[in-house]
């Protein structure tokens, strides 16, 4: 009987692992896209935006499948709710990563070269926060003892992203750019930094999830 119940859960475990892999792919597309943007600007960035969109769509498909299957598996009700909540929060980070690339392409945002290094630093912090979040989620689902430390690491990344964002906004408004442009570029910076905030929110949730199973 136990093996029968466990076999049902094993499919769910594999689907969650697949979801995490797909999410990593979105974040890697985000990282590669921003690296390209730093070198070449927005022309040609569509390729990365499309790639992140494709990966995000696959994530959605896997997530929908997990949500459909979750109630047929033998997880306890509290665990089902925790897993659903975890997916919802990770999904927000994925959507944000995809949205950053899409907005740069759609609005043809050409960030001034003087700000590009700082912006790349912000993107790196957000990417690191998102990837660490994925490590944390995998650890929490496997009940590994590292989940809490990884949660702290996500917070540290978010804190760095916050500092980068503030430095970038300050530099932006200290520049001679027209106010409309300052606001226009600031929106991109805020949009990108929100990814770190969302990753931190999700990491807090994952930490609680891990603590509940340790208590």
């Amino acid at each position, binding site marked *: 009987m136990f093996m029968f119940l466990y076999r049902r859960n094993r499919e769910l475990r594999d689907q969650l692992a697949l979801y995490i892999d797909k999410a990593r792919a979105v974040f890697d597309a985000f990282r590669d896209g921003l690296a390209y943007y730093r070198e070449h600007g927005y022309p040609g960035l569509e390729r990365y935006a499309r790639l992140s969109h494709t990966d995000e769509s696959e994530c959605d498909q896997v997530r929908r499948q997990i949500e459909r299957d979750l109630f047929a598996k033998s997880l306890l*009700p509290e665990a089902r709710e925790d897993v659903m909540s975890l997916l919802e929060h990770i999904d927000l980070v994925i959507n944000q990563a995809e949205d950053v690339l899409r907005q740069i392409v759609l609005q043809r945002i050409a960030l001034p070269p003087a700000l590009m290094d700082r912006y790349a630093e912000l993107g790196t912090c957000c990417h690191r926060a998102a990837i660490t979040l994925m490590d944390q989620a995998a650890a929490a689902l496997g009940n590994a003892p590292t989940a809490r430390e990884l949660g702290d690491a996500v917070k540290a990344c978010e804190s760095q992203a916050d500092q980068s964002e503030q430095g970038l906004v300050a530099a932006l408004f200290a520049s001679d750019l027209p106010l409309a442009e300052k606001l226009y570029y600031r929106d991109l910076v805020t949009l990108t930094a929100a990814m770190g905030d969302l990753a931190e929110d999700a990491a807090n949730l994952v930490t609680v999830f891990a603590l509940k199973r340790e208590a």
Partner: protein
Amino acid sequence: MLGLMAGVFLGWSLGANDAANCFGTAVSSRMVAWRHAVWLAAAFILLGAVAQGQAGIATLQALTDQTATGAELAALAAAVTVTTMVRLRLPASASQAVVGALLGSGLATGHIHAAPLGRVLACWIGTPLGAMLVAFVLYHVLRWPLSRFRPSLFVLDPILHLGLILCGCYAAHALGANSVANVASFLVVGGRLSPGAAVAVGGLAMAAGVLTFSRGVMLTVGRGITPLDAFTALVVVLAEGITVHLYALLGVPVSMSQAIVGAILGIGLAKGVHILNARNLVHVLVGWLLAPAAAATLGAIFAVLAGA
């Protein structure tokens, strides 16, 4: 006939109320479907009653010298007491009401034996304390492999799921073995039924109570204990099952509700947190005093009226 009806009614009421202590947490938190829980509880209560339920009959019979009529009236007094207290939402232990009714009847007719009474009272006090100790030990024993091997969500949840079902079945078996004597002791007086037949009738009455009327109580009791997580709920149900089963083997019917309160207190001690409010403790104290006192009064009144 009156004794049989009162006994069966008492058994039905016992099943309807006490099955909640076996599967309440699992059902109210949707870990086990209600329709599965009631069939399992009914089957295991009947099994426990038939397999191990006869020991308590001798204890209850030893408390007083009863005629067939006296036993019928005592059964009626116990049934009326339990039903009234449940209707008034007061904590009621059928085991304690039965003993109270027998004592009241015995006092009125002057046929009472003090020696077995001391044993019964000691077991009443020992029920929550024993359950507390068992829960405390079980919590630490079962916690150790979880801390050591840290099974993932996908491994632990099926174990807890299965464990809750198995422990619920075991607790239902213990309930049947322990409590059926409350019913059967009235049915064997005067040789109306053999002990084997009496526990079968009592077990069937309890199973009928589970199948027909346990849902509301199960959800209410379960929600009252919902702050417990699956692991803690498993320990509580197992601890109450072991405690009540031990008393069934000793032949003293005790209160399952009081065992569960003791088990929760034991978990609180083990975790170093306060998870039991004063209301639960008052529940135990009132159960100790009110049900037997009310049943004894009613049993004495019935006996005096029958004598007049």
